[in-house]
């Protein structure tokens, strides 16, 4: 494996190896650029992944201390686990279920289309769908998204059959097994899905795309990637001219190290990325790096979500097969006559027995929790995922009263539901329930959100430097050789799962960085 000297200031340093960081690393390496990836987590593989929800969670999830506040239920239900993200090589793409959708034109123009909404800090993206289309195309090819590039859809499982029939009976015309980055037939060195049902536990066959399985090995094969796992970056350093010069990190032995860099790209997911910028405060930048706008950490978005579970007289066995196995997009358009702006998707989801009692009614007990579980084998479930509105005060801050294992302030995640989010979630609950009612549900349970698996917006893109942290290339407005390369860049959250867009932006950013490096602009 390639090893760069810690004083080699010609490399691009990428923090995080997930959807954003892992993709960017591979794209840069393919172009001949030397890359050091610093990843806080350990490296696993298809052989070490575990088909056990809790053990896998301990193996892959980010469990460093965090705090939360605000009116969202998460602050009560999971106060120290506001987000469900990973700390491992491959980041949250080891956990993700592969649902891969493009944002639509209106979602890039949220402010213009939805108009000013009280309490929301809506902006338009400084980017159009047209500008991103080619990159979406490349991303879908890279991920092997079903129903694109001639790749067949996946066969639907039992959970999908219930969902599909319910959808048809309530009048949703379009319902299918979705656009999923899971191989329906062998492709790109990855086998076809065996319907194992542990997609969120890493996928032991490798049928599911992740940066661990695809991007990182490809980057390593170029001989230009120095991937350092169990290396936790604590600070980004800069010189007097205001350019970043490298990073400080704790290595796997807990020793503090420094790595110099020509360019630093932060892709730690939307909580760690702003946290790191804030922690990198200095006398020159007392509010943190790239934060002259004061926007670092603000506009935290996590999608409006909720789960509808239904039990039936007959078996479903929802745990068999792919976790997200089908989609209805009919509610995803902006139709204000429903009483809210923007829209949402309905997607099947399966929850295993080990974790269902924790999620059905978080903190709950007694027969209202156990009666549905008695019917576990006869249960189907779907997930609502809608666009939530950015709000300036929904933000990541440093909680200086608590320290993590490295003595650094933990991030606090503050989120208040906007009235729009609440109206949308209730609409989703009604529609989701109607779907199951239509196929004879015995009992329907509407459950509040899980810890956030989609995290966005905390270093948002903006045309004008005072409205956001990065420009349309993910380059920070303040510091030309500092980039944000993950979902933190999102100006608005859009009613689509975020990863395909994160990957498309990373591909595009790599092209731009390579071009600028070639011209010696950065």
């Amino acid at each position, binding site marked *: 494996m390639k090893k760069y000297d810690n004083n080699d200031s010609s490399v691009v340093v990428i923090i995080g190896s997930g959807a954003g960081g892992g993709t960017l690393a591979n794209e840069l390496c393919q172009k001949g650029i030397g890359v050091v990836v610093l990843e806080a987590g350990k490296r696993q593989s298809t052989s070490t992944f575990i088909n056990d929800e809790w053990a896998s969670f301990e193996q892959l999830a980010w469990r460093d201390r965090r705090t939360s506040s605000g009116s969202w239920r998460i602050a009560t239900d999971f106060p120290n686990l506001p987000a469900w993200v990973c700390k491992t090589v491959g980041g949250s793409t080891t956990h993700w279920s592969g649902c891969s959708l493009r944002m639509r034109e209106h979602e890039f123009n949220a402010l213009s289309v939805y108009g000013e909404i009280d309490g929301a800090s809506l902006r338009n993206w400084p980017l159009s769908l047209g500008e991103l289309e080619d990159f979406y195309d490349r991303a879908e090819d890279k991920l092997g998204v079903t129903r694109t590039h001639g790749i067949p859809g996946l*066969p639907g499982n039992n959970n999908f*059959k219930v969902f599909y029939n319910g959808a048809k009976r309530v009048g949703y015309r379009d319902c299918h097994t979705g656009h999923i980055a899971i191989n*329906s037939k062998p492709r790109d060195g990855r086998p076809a899905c065996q319907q194992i049902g542990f997609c969120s536990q890493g996928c032991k066959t490798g049928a599911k795309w992740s940066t661990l399985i695809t991007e990182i090995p490809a980057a390593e094969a170029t001989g230009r990637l120095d991937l350092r796992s169990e290396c936790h970056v604590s600070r980004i350093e800069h010189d007097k001219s205001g350019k970043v010069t490298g990073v400080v990190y704790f290595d796997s032995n807990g020793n503090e190290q420094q790595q110099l860099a020509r360019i630093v790209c932060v892709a730690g997911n939307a909580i760690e990325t702003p946290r790191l910028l804030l922690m990198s405060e200095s006398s020159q930048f007392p509010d943190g790096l790239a934060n002259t706008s004061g926007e670092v950490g603000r506009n935290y978005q996590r999608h409006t979500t909720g789960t509808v579970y239904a039990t039936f007289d007959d078996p479903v066995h929802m745990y068999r097969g792919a976790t997200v196995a089908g989609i209805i997009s009919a509610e995803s358009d902006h139709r204000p006559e429903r009483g809210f702006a923007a829209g949402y998707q309905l997607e099947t989801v399966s929850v295993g027995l080990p974790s269902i009692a924790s999620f059905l009614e978080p903190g709950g007990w007694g027969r209202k929790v156990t009666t549905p579980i008695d019917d*576990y084998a006869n249960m189907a479930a779907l997930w609502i995922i809608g666009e939530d509105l950015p709000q300036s005060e929904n933000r990541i801050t440093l909680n200086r009263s608590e320290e993590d294992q490295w003595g650094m302030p933990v991030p606090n995640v503050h989120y208040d539901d906007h009235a729009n989010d609440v109206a949308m979630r209730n609409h989703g609950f009604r529609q989701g329930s109607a779907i199951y009612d239509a196929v004879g549900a015995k009992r329907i349970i509407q459950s509040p959100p899980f810890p956030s698996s989609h995290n966005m917006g905390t270093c948002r893109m903006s045309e004008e430097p005072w409205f956001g942290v990065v420009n349309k290339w993910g380059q920070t407005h303040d510091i030309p050789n500092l980039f944000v390369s993950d979902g933190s860049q999102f100006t608005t959250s859009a009613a689509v799962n975020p990863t395909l867009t994160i990957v498309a932006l990373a591909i595009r950013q790599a092209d731009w960085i390579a071009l600028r490096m070639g011209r010696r602009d950065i």
Partner: protein
Amino acid sequence: MSTRRSFISKGSTIAGVLSLSSTAIIALAPARAWALDLESLTTLQGHTLLVLSRHIFPHDTLDSAVYALVVKDLDTLASDPKVATLLIEGIRRLNEVAGGHWLDISPERQLQIVESIAGGEFFEKVRSTAVISLYNNELAFAHFGYGGSSFERGGYLNRGFDDLTWLPSPPDEASPRRSNR
């Protein structure tokens, strides 16, 4: 439910016999009798926690052997003296409110007392342990009909991922036939 008493703190056990209604579990068990050795808790405390877990997550036909797994995990946690004190104090309080042995009063009265302590630290310790221990084991998997680890059995591609027959099958354009056989 047995309420055998023991006041020996070390080397205590709780034990039981699988009820004949748990056919799925009996198929897994090497023998019908089960026993659980406790390190930190007494038999009486173990039984109290077992019955308490049953009130918190009541499944009428779920065998006590599965609830005993909650007690096992609480017993392990009780090797930390802070947790031990929390549990012992909590049990003491249950008995105090019951005006004797909480285990000996009617299930309806027991539940009323549980409701009165819900949300407290002791209750939360038992609930948050039970919510995982009770459902994350092979006995519970068998009882509730969950498949557990499936990779070593080749997943569900040929084991029923789409075997639901009580609704019509979606058309090919919505759900293509599997293409890799």
